[in-house]
């Protein structure tokens, strides 16, 4: 298969050897083929978007380019010469650099120390500080070289990543899901500097993403990957969002999840091809249904001092009724995490209380909230949702083993039966109940968490950033499940930094700022401008 035949040849400077050419690359992990005979070319002076769902093989492909994974078959040519890239250092020597999603910074070290990591030769703090200053000036990436990385915001941390990558003056730069941790403004800044990185010295840049809008607006060439194969190649100028979405999932997707996949940059664009306006569909009935009824979950005057002495929660009161989805909107870091932690029994309040069905639940006592009927899909799956080294079946019963154990002894057979039932019901793609959790893709790991929490028949379900890092199909599925849970009478609290997701799913929306609820509106009342002002703390 010759890639030139399907490549938009007009985009390629004639005669020049591509900066990178993947030829017939195949990589298998056990029974799974992560990359299946991939052909792909990257050219100097252009931004190449690689679009695909989680598990489509795009990360694996990039890991081969920077030497973290070796291909089973095929070859990688750099500037026309076939190269074996055995380690990140070898990749760096070939002029390949990567801006990692979240793996390459050491929190305990300072900015300059992080930038110096992985080089050779004498350690010269002065020279490194100077170089950071130069890069800062050249690309508008201003940063304090002596700041401790652990104390920086996500946007600044990424800035450090970019500087660390550019310091080696790479010819080929890979950005791996760069906006997954950024605010909209930070994303805009990022793409501005991305253009500059390309314009200077004709670098080849790869943008790996599952956000359609991002790829559409920030790139020149687009390759779409699905199930380990490159299924489509287009020019960004000739592509549109629905085409990309179809190519990515291989079928029509509902517009909702498509919009969610567009991500944070896209409030305007999404409304541009919007045929399901934010309308008073079920919202009005939900609010009226909740009138005059006793709330299931009631948080009263919750206050909590944060680690820095500033209040994390300030006099926060919130009622949640059976059958409604309440969305908590807000810029990250305004108390949403603490709200989720409070309802997971991880935090004790300084004052205030939490009640379920009118009965007070002690806060900060391990397991109390869960016993009272609160299920939680936690914000960070790997950190607090699952145990990666345990099996799928074991993860499914982490919270409650009563269904599969007698007098504290696990019954393997009923555990197996239970797990198989859950795998069927939630369509979890895996090798079986005994598959280790780490062998599942992110979307399927999240299904396990969802299955476990719903199996408890909770009265209240807290979904904290439930679709973070998931692909279009998984986002769609999660939305359907949350709606189904609400229809079955569960009170759902959706905490999300993806505004689109909140607008799509919630019957009622509350906005958090500085640890308090600064506004509340039903779906029918939503005014985007007002919402934005509330989130920014300006209203």
């Amino acid at each position, binding site marked *: 298969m010759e890639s030139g035949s399907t490549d938009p040849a007009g985009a390629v400077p004639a005669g020049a050897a591509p900066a990178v050419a993947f030829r017939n690359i195949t990589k298998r992990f056990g029974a799974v083929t992560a990359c299946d005979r991939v052909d792909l070319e990257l050219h100097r002076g252009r931004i190449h978007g690689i679009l695909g769902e989680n598990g489509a093989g795009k990360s694996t492909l990039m890991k081969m380019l920077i030497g*973290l*994974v070796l291909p089973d078959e095929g070859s990688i040519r750099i500037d026309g010469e076939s190269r074996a890239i055995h*380690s*990140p*250092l070898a990749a*760096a020597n070939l002029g390949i650099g*990567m801006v*990692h999603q979240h*793996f*390459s*910074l*050491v*929190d*305990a*070290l300072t900015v300059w*120390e992080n930038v*110096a*990591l*992985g*080089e*050779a*030769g*004498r*350690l010269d703090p002065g020279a490194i500080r100077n170089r950071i200053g130069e890069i800062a000036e050249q690309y508008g990436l201003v940063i304090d070289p002596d700041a401790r990385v652990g104390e920086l915001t996500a946007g600044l941390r990424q800035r450090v990543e970019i500087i*660390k990558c550019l310091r080696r003056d790479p010819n080929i730069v890979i950005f791996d899901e760069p906006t997954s941790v950024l605010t909209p403004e930070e994303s805009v800044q990022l793409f501005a500097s991305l253009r500059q990185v390309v314009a200077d010295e004709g670098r080849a840049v790869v943008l790996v993403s599952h956000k359609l809008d991002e790829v559409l607006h920030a790139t020149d060439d687009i390759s779409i990957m699905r199930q380990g194969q490159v299924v489509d190649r287009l020019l960004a100028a000739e592509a549109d969002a629905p085409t990309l979405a179809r190519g990515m999932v291989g079928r029509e997707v509902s517009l909702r999840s498509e919009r969610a996949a567009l991500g944070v940059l896209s409030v305007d664009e999404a409304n541009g091809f919007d045929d399901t306006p934010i309308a008073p569909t079920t919202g009005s009935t939900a609010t009226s249904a909740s009138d005059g009824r006793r709330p299931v979950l009631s948080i009263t005057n919750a206050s909590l001092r944060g680690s820095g002495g500033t209040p994390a929660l300030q006099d926060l009161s919130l009622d949640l009724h059976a059958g409604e989805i309440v969305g908590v909107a807000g810029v990250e870091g305004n108390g949403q995490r603490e709200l989720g932690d409070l309802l997971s029994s991880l935090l004790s309040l300084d004052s205030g209380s939490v009640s379920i069905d009118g009965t007070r639940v002690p806060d900060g006592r391990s397991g109390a909230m869960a016993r009272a009927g609160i299920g939680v899909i936690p914000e960070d799956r790997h950190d607090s949702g699952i145990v*990666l080294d345990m099996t799928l079946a074991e993860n499914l019963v982490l919270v409650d083993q009563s269904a599969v154990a007698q007098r504290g002894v696990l019954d393997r057979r009923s555990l197996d039966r239970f797990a198989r039932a859950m795998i069927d019901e939630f369509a979890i793609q895996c090798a079986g109940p005994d598959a280790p959790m*780490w062998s599942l893709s992110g979307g399927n790991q999240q299904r396990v968490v969802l299955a476990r929490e719903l199996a408890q028949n909770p009265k209240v379900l807290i979904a904290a950033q439930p679709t973070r890092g998931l692909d279009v199909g998984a986002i769609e599925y999660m939305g359907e499940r949350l709606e189904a849970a609400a229809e079955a009478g569960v009170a759902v609290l959706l905490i999300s930094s993806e505004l689109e997701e909140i607008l799509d799913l919630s019957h009622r929306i509350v906005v958090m700022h500085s640890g308090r609820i600064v506004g509340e509106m039903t779906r029918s009342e939503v005014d985007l401008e007002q919402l934005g002002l509330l989130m920014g703390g300006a209203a």
Partner: protein
Amino acid sequence: MGAFFDAIIDIISSDSTYINGALFAAFLIFAASGEWVAERAGTLNISVEGMLLAGAFASAVGYDVTESMPVALLAGIVGSLVVAAVQAEMSHRLSADQFVVGLTLNILVFGLAGFLDNELEPTTKHAGRWVIPVLSDIPLVGDALFAQRWPFYLLFAVIPLTWWVVYRTRWGLEVRSVGENPQSADVSGIDVNRRRRQSIYYAGFTSGIGGWFLIFGVIGLFEDSVVGGRGFIAIAAVIFGGWTLRGTIAGCAVFAGALSFRLSVQGLGYEVNSELLQSLPFVVTLVGMALFAHRVRAPAALARPFVRGLK
């Protein structure tokens, strides 16, 4: 009650309390400085106990054969490095559990040293005393710090060397990064397990000096009980010191104070149950840990093995 305070004052105004304290502190610092480096790289290196004993025994044998103290020092370092090599290669090349390896090594070295001591019976002696004029005349601490046997003064090379290596060299930066976030270090192109092995070798290096110092700077002869669990106190000092070098040295000083106090109680003729007294330094260690252990932040990847690609 009055007699009790008189006794305390008697002990803390006695020169020998300070001299012994300085000796214990020096021994602990030799061990703890290398242990600190190993821990910063992510290994809770409990075989430091065995390293010290191997270093002490090897230096005694080295002296017995050559009658040269510098050669004895080299022999001590080599002996300690052998233990370090087993620890490093087993836990960071073969991925064996670092605690199991460390415990096994400690027991093995103890048995071997006792056996070989009986077989070889190495004879040793004290190193000469260096009295530094003027400074040694300072009351109370003058003799303790400036009139010791000459191996003591190596301390003033090992402490700055350790600081410089960890905070001022690329190797030190990489050591700190593999102890904090090995995945990030790996992605940045650093051989994580190699740095961890090297840091254990550094612990072997300083422990070897410590073992040699114990024989020639303190006791003058070898027995299999010379280390006697003090390697674990060195580990406690690193934790007590919050994984900073300064804190580690302060921890060594505090624990050395307890060890020396115990000696002085008996030396000055006060009658206290000796078994109870024996436990005093360890009680101080436990109390110190209870007070300080939760206030400090350990290297994030301490005692976590690193396997590439898994996370």
